[in-house]
């Protein structure tokens, strides 16, 4: 995962997270599907790796202490997702 650009990293985060949102809803109504559960956990682990890398190399993606702010207080001025 070394030569990945910021845009590519965000794209991977987007894909993993959407997959997990969808799988989360499925597991809510299929809670005994162990295959789906294993899928959820393995993707969730990888999402954590991706987000930790994003936080270290760029900026926190989450507030309220769910991500570190390692280059000063970055939350205010990093791009807001509705801006072009």
């Amino acid at each position, binding site marked *: 995962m070394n030569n990945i650009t910021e845009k590519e990293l*965000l794209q991977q*985060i*987007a894909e993993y*997270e*959407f997959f997990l*949102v*969808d799988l*989360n*809803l*499925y597991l*809510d*109504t*299929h*809670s005994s599907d162990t295959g789906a559960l294993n899928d959820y956990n393995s993707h969730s682990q990888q999402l954590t790796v991706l987000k930790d890398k994003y936080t270290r190399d760029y900026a*926190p*993606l*989450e*507030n*309220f202490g*769910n991500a570190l702010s390692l280059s000063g207080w970055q*939350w205010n001025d*990093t791009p*807001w*997702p*509705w801006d*072009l």
Partner: protein
Amino acid sequence: MWIYEKRLLYPVKITNPNPRMARLLLEQYGGSSSELTAANTYLNQRYTMPFGAVRALLTDIGTEELAHLEMIASMITQCLKAVSIEQLKSAGMDGWYAAHRTSPYPVNSSGEPWTTTYIVSSGDPVTDLTHDMASEQQARAVYEGLIDTSDDSNITKPLQFLRQREIVHYQRFEEALAIVRTELK
């Protein structure tokens, strides 16, 4: 409680201003079948829902609907960005500009305010879930109508995504209703 993630669930990048479309998109921002209605409905219904699976589903879909609302707000804002007064006037959006500049506001495409009466929360699991299934179909139909009105793929792609999510939500609510019926036997 809610944590905020500084990303959109699905990308929105509308580079061609479109005040007419901004007005139409209000239907899903503050209309009867809007994401605002969906989020408020499901998050309200979950408190007394008797079954954990259905509380989970209402919480999770309700949360996803807030992410959808954010996408619609982003689309409206981008459609109004860098629009000239002439373009606003042709689209009948000069009044909007006076009241709101380029901000979204929770009204429908006819300018009618969002209202709590759009929400059904009876406290009866079968009633609520049956209503929720119908709501998802209503929202799907509105998205199809909106998609028909645009030939800008920057607009239709996020709308197609949102339409597809309504179909999935419908399926999940149908499963939840089956769970409730089994549990109630």
